[in-house]
């Protein structure tokens, strides 16, 4: 029982990391219908900047996150304004956007390697110091970094939910998501909404790569690797559903760790992806269906 509880908590933390990557991607896709695969590479740049400012420039974690925030917003908006907008106008349908997004993602990933080096960076020691025993809650041990990951995940979803439901910008984003033509007719400037969506989508996912790097080291591919699971989670949770994305992320995380109770760990991914396949087959719209 203790073991199952520990695995459950470990799974929730893993789910939190997946959710952080997925939330920005989900927002961007649901509002702009852009399969922004470069999202993962942009997050990787964010993690490198946090590491670089903290470890190399001595600017502290806050300074690192501030620089990273500016960078991801600029990169996200630049992708939309300089690349996707032109492709949308010239070639409606979306496939060329996927190709372009994949290409810029790989370019960014390689540029990050050239600038920062291709070796794995030790984010943990450089930013928060050496590992210490986790906090004990009864039979469950929860490292402080995992607790922070969970807290940040829930905070990001809460703030984004509030933004979408309660603010003028959020309402405009939802209007564009529901019907871009009608939104234009009623005076909503869709290009501006697209730009804002890319900025917010990039910003809310910014901590994701940092937490992944904190857990297992930072290298150029971590963002892209994380995108694979995030992509599946977004569709399994239901396009446009924040809650669906969060639930699907936690479900995948918990499934991955809890499956260890009954199967050999070598079959972990097989089980996870089989369940996801079953879900999207039986319920093609995903767990939940609409934005927030």
């Amino acid at each position, binding site marked *: 029982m203790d073991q199952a509880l520990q695995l459950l908590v470990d799974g929730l933390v893993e789910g939190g990391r997946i959710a952080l990557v997925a939330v920005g991607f989900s927002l961007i896709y649901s509002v702009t219908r852009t399969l922004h695969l470069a999202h993962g590479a942009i997050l990787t740049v964010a993690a490198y900047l946090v590491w670089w400012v903290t470890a190399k420039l001595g600017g502290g974690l806050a300074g690192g996150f501030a620089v990273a925030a500016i960078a991801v917003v600029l990169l996200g908006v630049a992708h939309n304004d300089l690349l996707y907008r032109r492709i949308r106008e010239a070639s409606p349908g979306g496939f060329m956007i996927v190709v372009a997004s994949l290409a810029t993602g790989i370019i960014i990933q390689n540029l990050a390697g050239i600038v920062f080096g291709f070796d*794995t960076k*030790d984010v943990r020691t450089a930013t928060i110091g050496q*590992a210490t025993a986790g906090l004990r809650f009864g039979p469950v041990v929860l490292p402080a970094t995992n607790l922070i990951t969970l807290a940040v995940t829930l905070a990001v979803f809460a703030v984004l939910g509030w933004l979408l439901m309660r603010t003028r910008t959020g309402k405009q984003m939802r209007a564009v998501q529901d019907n871009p033509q009608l939104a234009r007719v009623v005076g909503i400037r869709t290009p501006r909404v697209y730009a804002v969506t890319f900025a917010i989508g990039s910003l809310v996912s910014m901590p994701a790569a940092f937490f992944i790097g904190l857990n297992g080291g930072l290298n150029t591919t971590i963002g892209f690797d994380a995108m694979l699971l995030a992509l599946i989670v977004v569709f399994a949770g239901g396009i446009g559903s924040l809650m669906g994305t969060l639930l699907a992320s936690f479900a995948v995380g918990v499934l991955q760790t809890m499956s260890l109770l009954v199967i050999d760990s070598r079959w972990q991914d097989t089980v996870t992806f089989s369940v996801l396949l079953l879900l999207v087959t039986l319920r093609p719209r995903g767990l939940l269906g609409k934005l927030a």
Partner: protein
Amino acid sequence: MRQALVRLLGKWLVSAAIATAPVTSHAAGELTVGALFGMTGPSASYGDQQSKGVDIAFAEINGAGGAGGTILKLKIEDHGGVALKGVLALNKLASVDKVPFVFTSFTNIISATASIGTRDKIVMLNGGGTAPTLAGLSPYLFSNVPLENYHIRNEATYANKKLGRKTLGILYVNDALGTADSKTMEQTWKDLGGQVVATQAAATDATDFTGQLTQIWAKKPDAIYIAAGGQQVATALNQKTELGITSQILGTSFWTIPEVLHSAKGASEGVIFSTQQWDPARPSSADAKKFVEAFQAKYGTQPLGNSAAYYAGAHILGDVITALNQAKKPITGPNIREELLHHGTFQTIFGPLNFAPDGTSSMPLTLMTVKNDAFVPVANQ
């Protein structure tokens, strides 16, 4: 006219054949050899250390006039720890650079490229891949480091008999090396009368081992053997500490890397692993001392075991080329292979070394631990 044309064509074909044959792949008095190192990715620190070891050795050999007059040059190709990249890299070294010899590393790379070396008669000298499955993999593959089965027996015997640990958990990365190491450790531990209570695998690119460690810790084993390398070792050790796991940690021979000391600072204290005898703080011979001093002068740090292994390998190559030059034999893959097998004892900084017909070698081993953020022989604690 026709005969003249045929003669001309014949001469051209002979010239072309000579120009493309490995035997003339180097200018007179100069030999370019290849290296398949992981210079990028999660295991980049291995390639960095390995190339530095070769670099120091080549500087010494060339500074003394070359190996029997032949100046040695190194062409590094990056495999990034990925088998497919390793295959492309060795194909390039074989077909473009036409090298007769490569330094190679990583079990998965060696396993994937061994057939290319055999096909193109390129000698592959391994100073870093240690899976027991590498023995006899290719007639052109030689390992100047002991394979992991020797290390596993060394550390398992110490943990079981000397420390009295009887139950063992195993965490391994599900690749060629991790799988082979896991099986070897399981059998060895059972042979020693111990019990393996839990075995967990992790994906090759895993960055989270908490689930597997939780499962292992549920059985409260006396010791946990972690068959992983690079940043993954540091991650697993840090997560072990965060989960409050207190079992004795046993590692692999390739743990003499900065990640274990720095990325797993604190979490690696007290781990035990077996490696070839190498203690840069106490060099065991004049040659070893010379290497440590040269390395420190050039790179500002002490050489770890990985650098030392490739330094030793580069000097073995130097001895072989010298012998071939003295015997006035052409420097080809087959001749290098013959010389490695029949040279007799090579004097290395680890001690005397002989190659067995299956390409393996044995040498004195030592048990290492981490104390106060430094690698220390267990006996010197």
